[in-house]
């Protein structure tokens, strides 16, 4: 089937099988490999992207379900001059990553979360990111990074 999706603001048109998962579509059809597959069973959040501005697990969504809509991936966050998105910068500043495998999903989940809750408490952040696992267990710095990004946005 033919689908058209705006990915990071770029109109994409592809012919895909209906069973194509959104993550597979992004990585293979759009060649955007920033989005990772971790568990492939909806549990780890490594594949998180924004669909219509809201976080979703792209391993548990069909590309067909996103047809006509807009997707933001990790590649779509930084400005065109390379300036990092505030959440990316906060992860950098606070050492919010170790091996980096969960990072794209964590950042996307955090961006979506802060949009819904711009002034979170630490507990809100932990609950807001409960769908994302970090096998390096670097949660402390991830939470600090998200809180710092929220604080930065206030100023």
């Amino acid at each position, binding site marked *: 089937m033919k689908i058209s999706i705006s990915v990071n603001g770029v109109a994409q048109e592809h012919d895909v099988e*209906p069973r194509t998962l959104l993550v597979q579509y992004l990585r293979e059809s759009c060649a955007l490999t920033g989005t990772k597959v971790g568990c492939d069973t909806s549990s780890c959040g490594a594949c998180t992207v924004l669909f219509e501005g809201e976080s*979703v*697990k792209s391993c*548990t*969504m*069909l590309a067909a*379900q996103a047809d006509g809509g807009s997707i933001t991936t990790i590649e779509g966050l930084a400005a065109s001059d390379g300036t990092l998105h505030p959440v990316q910068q906060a992860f950098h500043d606070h050492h919010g990553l170790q091996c980096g495998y969960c990072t794209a999903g964590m950042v996307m989940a955090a961006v979506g979360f802060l949009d819904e809750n711009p002034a979170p408490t630490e507990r809100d952040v*932990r609950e*807001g990111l409960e769908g*994302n696992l970090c096998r390096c267990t670097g949660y402390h710095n991830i939470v600090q990074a998200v809180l710092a990004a929220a604080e930065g946005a206030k100023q």
Partner: protein
Amino acid sequence: MIPAAFEYVRAASADEALAAISEHGEDAKFLAGGMSLLPLMKLRLATPTVLVDVARIRDLSYITDAGDHIAIGALTRHRDLETSTLLAKECGIVASVAAQVGDNQVRHRGTLGGSVAHSDPASDLPAAMVALDAIIVARSAAGERTIAAADFFTGFFETALNADELLTEIRVPKAGASGFNYQKFNRRAQDWAIVGAVAATVAGTKRVALVNMGNTPVRATAVEAALASGASIADASMSAAMGCEPPTDLNASVEYREHLARVLVRRALDASA
């Protein structure tokens, strides 16, 4: 893991969805948020040959004041329940339970209708529907019928819904902004309840329902009866597991689940007093 091949049909209205389901018969399935169906398809535990995507039927996504009850469209997402000011005011328990389903990503996609139709005894919202005596509205080519929540959940992942019926609306009573609590017990974030206890107050009467204490969500009728006859919360909670046949699994034995039911019911009742 990629699902087995299927044909994809997107319905713009309930009528279109019903026409597609009757055209394709037995092997066709409705797809709402996909938060239960897609994982099963990826594991090839479900292999529908046609998916009728109903998620975009906009006029089945609403939360409205219908006078003596609140009407919720079947395609309303958990996220919309969680953030609804109307629900918070008129039937807060539904918003509160929805906020505890899975994680943000799941709540952005999953729907009330999907959760109810899926009928997983470990799911949160079905127990709330049973506690509230919700009315479930189903539509087929032959017309519309209403089913009481107590008659809807018929078994483990089984409901009174026929394969050609689309769940369109769920009606909940105006139980108010307080007098409720949901105790969900799990060990890991985003997980299903090992046991859960819903307490709600409808028209001055306490209702109690349990998650994962049998093949379906169950009403703790013995607890409700004890409370009605004047027993204390501590005493009434002791009957929480009465008549239940909870599963044994990796997480908990029957005895442990029975214990959890008693403790969680007491906590839910204390918090909702």
